[in-house]
Structure formats: structure tokens, C-alpha cells
């Protein structure tokens, strides 16, 4: 198999929102993201030196990482606005460049924006965000090795990845947006500082993954009605207004270091293909961030399917060291006898 390029995308905006004030989230500075890119490149180089395609972000994170590693790459999405659309555009360009694997640095929102541009991307998401369910903390060096193993064809993508679930959202019948972990409706009036933090404003949430092992809206379902990323269904939670008797009260870690008591009216599983409909006014939040307003009378429909990115499993790849070509049997008999 001909080696394919590896894509690298770092979101400069991840790890800097209001959750550093309201909650106890850390600032994820861009110098560290740059260093992670450099370490990814070391891991990639350990398995050879394929072509690198990188998102030339507004903060020069990926470019700086390549320069530090003395690696040449091909930039995409060079004219950028500093907004999420850049990530979506970069994803489409990486798809056009036939990338065999893409490493993303960001949070759930970053990967959502990426998937909007390339829904079935071969994705290796590294966590540099705040509430992270989709990406996980993996050392960049190892992520680079894993990405190189896939892009070079040493391992088959289907053998070392799982398709992610996607919540497809339509507004008034038009395809509008997606979420990878949760899509929620609130009775807010503004997108404002974006982060979804006030659970008293929640109306409904569809959870593709509901896990108690992550912070955020996912934890509400995770503590009540868990749904693993591997399971072929989702959960829908309808919230109770403050002050009214609720079926359940969940003390949920809604952000790092921050708990809220959430009143739940109903929680149930929802099958793939089932549609959940709601009506405005309100705000729709995807993967923890308020994204768009819904005017009075506008109808939003949410549906979960497993047609998202192929999420690469780093551990599964690295367990087969011999297949990667980094472990070789010693042929010297004298040495073998001595051992």
C-alpha cells in the first residue's frame, strides 16, 4: 500500500474559555500544543517520514511544531478567520489531500468542527480542551506512531478503529449541524460566552455517549443511564424546570471542579434513526458549547447514527509492536544463547 499523508490540526482556541473562571479548568497554552505537535512528529518519524499536511492555524501552532522538528509539510486552510469554520475547511482540504490519518489537538468542539468538514475521517484526537469525551489524553509521541502505522498501511484502519456516533441536527428540515457527544437545547437567549454551564436553563439533551468518566453534560446521563461509545443507541434526557419536582436529581460534574444539581424529568434510551424534535425559542448547544439560537416556532430535529469519524485506537496499534516494525527478533545465535 502506498503511504498516505498524515494530517495535523491544532485548535488554538481550545482550553481558553470562560470555564477557567466559572469552573476550575486550566488554561491550555498554545506553546504546549506546539510542543505536542513536535512530539507527534517524532513518533511519526520513528516509523518513517511520510508527507505531512497541516492546518496553518492563525496562531502558527502546527507550523511552529513542524519548524521545531525540522519537518517540511504542506499547509492547508492558509487564509483563516480564527473561527471554527477554519477547522471545518481544513478538514475538507485534508480529505482532498487523501490523508490516511489525522491527528487533532483540541476538545470535543474541535473534533465536531473537523467532522463537519470530513465526517468519516480517520481521526486520532488528542485532548487539549476542557470537557473531553471524544478526544483522550495520549502522549503525542505515541499518537504520532499510531497515526503513522495507519497512514503507512502497516495496520488496517478497520482493524484499529471504531466509527463514532454522530447526532445529526436539522432545523426546519434543513441539515444544520452535528454533535459528536451531546446536543442540548436550553432556554438561553444568547450564545454569549458559549460554554454550557447553567444547568437550570437546560431543556433537553441527546447524548450519543453518556459516561460517568468524563465531566460535562455527558456525566448527567452517565450517572443516570450510561451509554458507552461502543453501544448502538443513545440517551435522551429531558430536564425539569428549577423549583419543580423532578424524577431524579443528579449531582453532576458539569465542568472541571464544578458540580451542579440537575433536575431530570425523564431519561430514556433512543435507538439509531429515532427522531427527537423540539421547538424554539432557545439556544442549541453542541458538545458543550452554545452554538446557535432557535427562533420562536423553529423546529429542531436530532437523530443519532454511527456514521462519524473512524477513531483510531492508539493502544490497539501499539500492542502489535512487531507489526509496526519497531520490534525485531535478534538473529545472532550466540547472543540469543547468552540471554
Amino acid at each position, binding site marked *: 500500500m502506498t503511504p498516505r499523508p498524515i494530517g495535523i490540526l491544532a485548535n*488554538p*482556541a481550545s482550553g*481558553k*474559555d*470562560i470555564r*477557567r*473562571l*466559572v469552573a476550575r479548568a*486550566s*488554561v491550555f*497554552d*498554545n*506553546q504546549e500544543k506546539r510542543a505536542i505537535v513536535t512530539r507527534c512528529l517524532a513518533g511519526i518519524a520513528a516509523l518513517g517520514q511520510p508527507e505531512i499536511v497541516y492546518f496553518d492555524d*492563525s*496562531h*502558527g501552532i502546527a507550523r511552529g511544531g513542524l519548524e521545531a522538528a525540522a519537518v517540511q509539510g504542506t499547509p492547508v486552510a492558509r487564509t483563516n*478567520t*480564527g473561527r471554527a469554520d477554519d477547522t471545518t475547511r481544513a478538514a475538507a482540504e485534508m480529505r482532498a489531500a487523501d490523508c490516511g490519518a489525522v491527528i487533532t489537538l483540541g476538545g470535543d468542539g474541535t473534533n465536531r468542527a473537523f467532522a463537519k468538514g470530513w465526517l468519516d475521517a480517520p481521526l486520532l484526537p488528542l485532548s487539549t480542551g476542557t470537557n473531553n469525551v471524544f478526544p483522550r489524553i495520549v502522549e503525542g509521541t505515541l499518537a504520532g506512531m499510531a497515526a503513522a502505522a495507519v497512514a503507512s498501511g502497516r495496520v488496517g484502519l478497520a482493524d484499529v478503529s471504531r466509527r463514532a456516533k454522530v447526532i445529526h441536527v436539522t432545523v426546519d428540515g434543513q441539515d444544520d449541524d452535528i454533535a459528536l457527544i451531546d446536543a442540548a437545547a436550553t432556554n*438561553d*437567549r*444568547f*450564545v*454569549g*460566552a*458559549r460554554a454550557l*454551564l*447553567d444547568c437550570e436553563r437546560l431543556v433537553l439533551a441527546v447524548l450519543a455517549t453518556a459516561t460517568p468518566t468524563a465531566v460535562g453534560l455527558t456525566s448527567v446521563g452517565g450517572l443516570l443511564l450510561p451509554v458507552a461509545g461502543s453501544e448502538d443507541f443513545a440517551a435522551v434526557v429531558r430536564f425539569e424546570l428549577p423549583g419543580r419536582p423532578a424524577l431524579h436529581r443528579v449531582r453532576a460534574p458539569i465542568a472541571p471542579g464544578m458540580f451542579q444539581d440537575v433536575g431530570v424529568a425523564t431519561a430514556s434510551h433512543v435507538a439509531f434513526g429515532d427522531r427527537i424534535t423540539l421547538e424554539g*425559542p432557545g439556544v442549541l448547544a453542541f458538545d458543550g458549547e452554545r452554538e446557535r*439560537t432557535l*427562533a420562536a416556532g423553529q423546529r429542531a430535529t436530532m437523530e443519532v447514527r454511527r456514521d462519524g469519524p473512524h477513531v483510531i485506537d492508539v493502544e490497539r496499534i501499539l500492542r502489535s509492536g512487531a507489526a509496526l516494525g519497531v520490534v525485531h527478533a535478534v538473529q545472532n545465535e550466540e547472543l540469543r544463547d547468552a540471554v
Partner: protein
Amino acid sequence: MTAQPTDEVLLDMHRRMVRIRNFEQEAGKLAEDGKIPGALHLYVGQEAVAAGVMTHLSDQDWITSTHRGHGHLIAKGGEFGPMFAELFGRATGYCKGKGGSMHISNMDLGMLGANGIVGAGPPIAVGAAFSCKTQGEGHVAATFFGDGASNEGSFHEAANMASLYKLPMLFVCENNGYGEYTPQANHQAIVDVADRAPGYGMPGVVVDGMDAVAVYEAAGEALRRARAGEGPTLLECKTYRFFDHVGVRGMGLSYRTDEELAEWQKRDPITLFEARLAELEILDADSAQAVHDEVLAGVRAGIEFAEASPLPDPSVLLDDVYA
């Protein structure tokens, strides 16, 4: 947690932004016509920052400003008459005509002054915040500065002391992408000034500085922390000035492109805010226009007041000089 703004607060923020916009546009015309002495650094485009922060402050809370300071004083409650009089150098100005655009101040409103020295505001705000903490009445100090000022030693010393003494203070970086005529990429190796906050042991947050509600929410939370004794915050607002560094058209330098300006103008903080207020049926287009008309009439009355005011008598030249 800071609640989303009520209708009353939204209309208040709108009025503050409209007051700034109209004042600055008229001041710009006067400057281009050579009727105002000295350089004017206009705030058009950045209104959401001043409005979003100042809505949380009272006259007992202090601010320090920059060379681009008119918007801060207006959002803090400055009146058009004494402001224009100050710009015209008249005795009825806020500083008796001796301060001008870049040194305008008013202690009654808690405005410690615009400042012609880049980065000079933060240490002054540290002093004010120290007094707020000592007096223990829950007041705060906010300092406005730009991306260029965040390279100055004075900013770093102020950040260090504010964090060390856990002062009730808000650092508001208005990152408009340029230090005067120098693109940010040519004067600092970082893009998010908020990245500097952890080095001083304080939280740093980035918000959309073209969105008054986003600034309002983030500033509200930062000021809640400050008043609760939890220390300072660095709030970076990504914004853009629609006019040149000085005046309206400036010197015609080619340090930024028309396309870039046009792209940012699509996100005019007042236009977008008015559209959302109309959607929410809080302020329709006619009512918004009425606010503009009323404010503009006030601005013109302020200009007339200034033009009719006397110049300072030479005998007061050394009055109010402390050193």
C-alpha cells in the same frame, strides 16, 4: 455564575455602545476637519468590550484606560459636553482643558485616566485595587490595555503584584491585532495574550470582543471572583478597530488590508446586537434608530457646549499640578 443579561441590561449595553459610536464618529469628523487639537485614537469597532465590562461597574469601582480612552469614559458614564470640551481644550472640560483626549479622567466616575504611555494603566489600577482591598467595601479596579501593552514591563509587574496580593482586579486586554501600526505577529510570539495569565498564577480567558453578551458574561464572572476575594483575572477580548490608529483615515499606511477591515466590519458589534435584540422583540429597528437619533442629538449638543466654552485662563496654568 453570572446570569444572562435581562432586557434592561441589554438595552443599557446597547445605549452605551451607541453613545460611544456616535461620539467617536463625530469626534472623528471634527479631527479630520482640524477642529480638535492633537491626535485622537478612536474606539469605533471595539464598543462591545467597554459596554460588556462597564455594565458591571459602579462609580465606586475604578478603571484605568489607554490612549484609545473615549469609549471607556463614555461607557463609565461620561457626559458628552465635558468630554468634547476636554478634547477642544476648554475650561469646562473634565480636566479643565489641560488633559485632552489622551489624559481625560474623572474621579467622580471612577475613571483614573486615559494614558498616552502604552502600558501605563495597569500599575495605576494595582494601586486602586490595593485601596479597594484595604477598604473592604467590595469595590474593584479594571485596567484596559492592548496587545502591544502586554509586552511592556509595567503590565508584567502589575500582573505579578495583583496576583501576589490577590487584588480585586480585572485585566482587560483589548486585542485588536495591532500595536499601533504593527501586526501582532510582528511584536509578540504568542497570539493569545491570555496565555500569559497562568505564569502569574491567575486565570486567563479569551472571549469574542465583538459580542457584548460574551464580554458581559465573562467579565461578570471575573468581577464576581474579584469581589469575592478570589483575585485578579486576565480577560482577553478579540476585537478590531474600524478606524485607523489615529483619526479616521489616518496616514494611509498599508499595514492592513481593506479586505481584512471589511471582514471584521461584517461583525460590527452594534449591528449584530441590534439584529438579535430585534429577533427577541426587545428592540425593533425603529426603536434602535430612535436611540441613535437621540444620542446623536446629545453628541451635537455636547459639541455646541464645547465650542461655546472658554479656553482656560493662562493664570491657571500651574493649578492642579502636583509634581
